[in-house]
């Protein structure tokens, strides 16, 4: 290695390390701040990282006491539900679109693509109005007047299924199209029905693409703070990122701010996506390009 190349490489390493530190800094900050007591954090001098004199874990352990664990449990349940549901829909819907011929298939395909172009802004507020005005629910009469509909009802976090999920159907369809039919044909000769073909042949063969779908849906659901933030205002029904969102929004106003507790919560909320990312990185990277199709 020549001298200039060595210098160039060293500069590259220094610059990239600084960049990496800056990118990870908020996470380090959040982890360390969570280990402080409230008093210690607010008296912190001019330091880059809020290292505590003696780390306290009460902020973290609070999250796993009966009064603090509900948002975490809700997030886990919601993420699990959507991951399984959307993956299953993507497999069934995508398989049928890839292999079966039927009237209206072109229309459905056109619909899948067209719905990806609907910007979120068009349905954000009307969706809220609709949920508030659902007839017969939450004290509403048949006209949808009188009560609050499903606002502030935890069920709403599990019911919504909008067009954005059709993206994963599209992805599964594309990947099944490139799969040779021979496997399914021999399975059919052996007497496999539709469901057996799906569960014994298609799902095992399509594990990589299902992983892409599941990982991306899981991440998106875990990080979806907006829907619970809009529809739920009780901590017990909320999810972790949404609850942290209400605390973050409240930081701008005057009053008592418990930063260490907030950051302990943030750290716990970041941990599952970080673990998913660490171990399933390649599936996320594969999903970037396809997720960009969303309007």
């Amino acid at each position, binding site marked *: 290695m020549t001298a200039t190349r060595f210098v160039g490489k060293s500069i590259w390493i220094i610059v990239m390390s600084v*960049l990496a530190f800056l*990118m*990870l800094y908020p996470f380090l900050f959040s982890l360390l701040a969570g280990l402080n007591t409230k008093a210690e954090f607010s008296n*912190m001098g001019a330091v880059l990282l809020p290292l505590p004199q003696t780390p306290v874990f009460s902020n973290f352990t609070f999250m796993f006491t009966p009064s603090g664990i509900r948002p975490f449990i809700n997030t886990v349940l919601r993420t699990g539900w959507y991951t399984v549901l959307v993956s299953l829909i993507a497999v*069934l819907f995508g398989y049928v679109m890839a292999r079966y011929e039927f009237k209206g298939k072109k229309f459905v395909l056109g619909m899948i693509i067209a719905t990806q172009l609907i910007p979120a*802004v068009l349905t954000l*507020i009307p969706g809220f109005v609709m949920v508030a005005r659902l007839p017969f629910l939450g004290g509403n009469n048949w006209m949808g007047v009188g009560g609050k509909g499903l606002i502030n009802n935890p069920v709403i976090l599990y019911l919504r299924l909008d067009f954005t999920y059709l993206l994963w159907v599209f992805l599964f369809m594309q990947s099944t199209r490139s799969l040779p039919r021979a496997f399914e044909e021999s399975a059919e000769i052996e007497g496999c029905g539709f469901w057996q073909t799906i569960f014994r042949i298609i799902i095992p063969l399509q594990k990589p693409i299902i992983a892409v779908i599941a990982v991306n849906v899981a991440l998106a659901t875990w990080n979806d703070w907006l829907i619970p933030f809009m529809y739920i205002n009780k901590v017990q029904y909320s999810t972790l990122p949404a609850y942290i969102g209400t605390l973050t929004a409240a930081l701008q106003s005057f009053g008592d701010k418990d930063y260490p507790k907030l950051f302990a919560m943030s750290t716990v909320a970041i941990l599952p996506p*970080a673990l998913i990312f660490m171990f399933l990185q390649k599936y996320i990277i594969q999903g970037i390009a396809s997720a960009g199709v969303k309007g």
Partner: protein
Amino acid sequence: MNNLSVMGVKPQKTLPRATREARRAYKIIIPILVYMCFWGLIPLVLGLGLGFVEFNGLSAAPKFVGLKNYIDFFTTGEYLTLLWRQAWLGFLCLSLNIVLSFIVGLSLNVKSRIRGLYRTSVYVPSIAAVSITTAVFVALLDPYSGGLNKMLEAVGMAPVVWNYSQFWMVFWIAVFYVWRSLGPAAIIWLGGLQSIDPALYEAADVDGANFVQKVRYITVPGLKFVAGYIFLTGIIGVMQMFDVVMFISKGNPYGMTDVLMYRIYRDGIVNFNMGMAGASSTILGIITVIFALIYLKFFFFKKED
């Protein structure tokens, strides 16, 4: 038929394969699509109607007011200012991100054993929810107890009340946006760079092309597709961005960093002025759809050439 009865199989009407497949397909697709339409299509139609009424979203019935909300949007000036700010703030964030992510993408295109580590750390911010990571920015920017001002004081500089300055709030919004969106864009640039056939550069070397010519005639054309992708999906994103603004600046100081999307959110969810929220949503939505259609044209129907 007789053979089957002999074998003990109940004779049944066997439909042609095509019919069976079609029935199976409908059984699966129709329930899913109908359910999705409930959550997707009704709000869409409702939203178009919402702009023509005055409605608090609660008990009182919506009152038809014709084009009043749309006229207000274009005549009060307030909403046009917010739309314009959404556009320039978004464009500022996006262009910074495109330039910086390209530089990072180039830097990651170096052969090294620790490259994976850098790639991971650049990507990590985008996998955490905005509501969580903005908390750190807000804590650092706290004018009294924030770490940033303490550091400024420590090096002998005057502390800055960040929230009182439009410039600094825009600056920090842009910093947060770039911090969060850098990774995915850099990875896409990197993918684009790596998909360029190295043989092209070798051929250029043989022909005696210099560095600028190689960039001009090989790298830039090779990245056209990727650039369009990043730019158009980015525009669609920033035209609807409000979470960063909401958490970092709350539109302050004095609404000078407020954007249209945040106003729509407040009109709808906080102030229950559903009519105005519906009208502004429709306008912003149409603008976004135009960008989305350009994107679709660019991506799905340009592949032949």
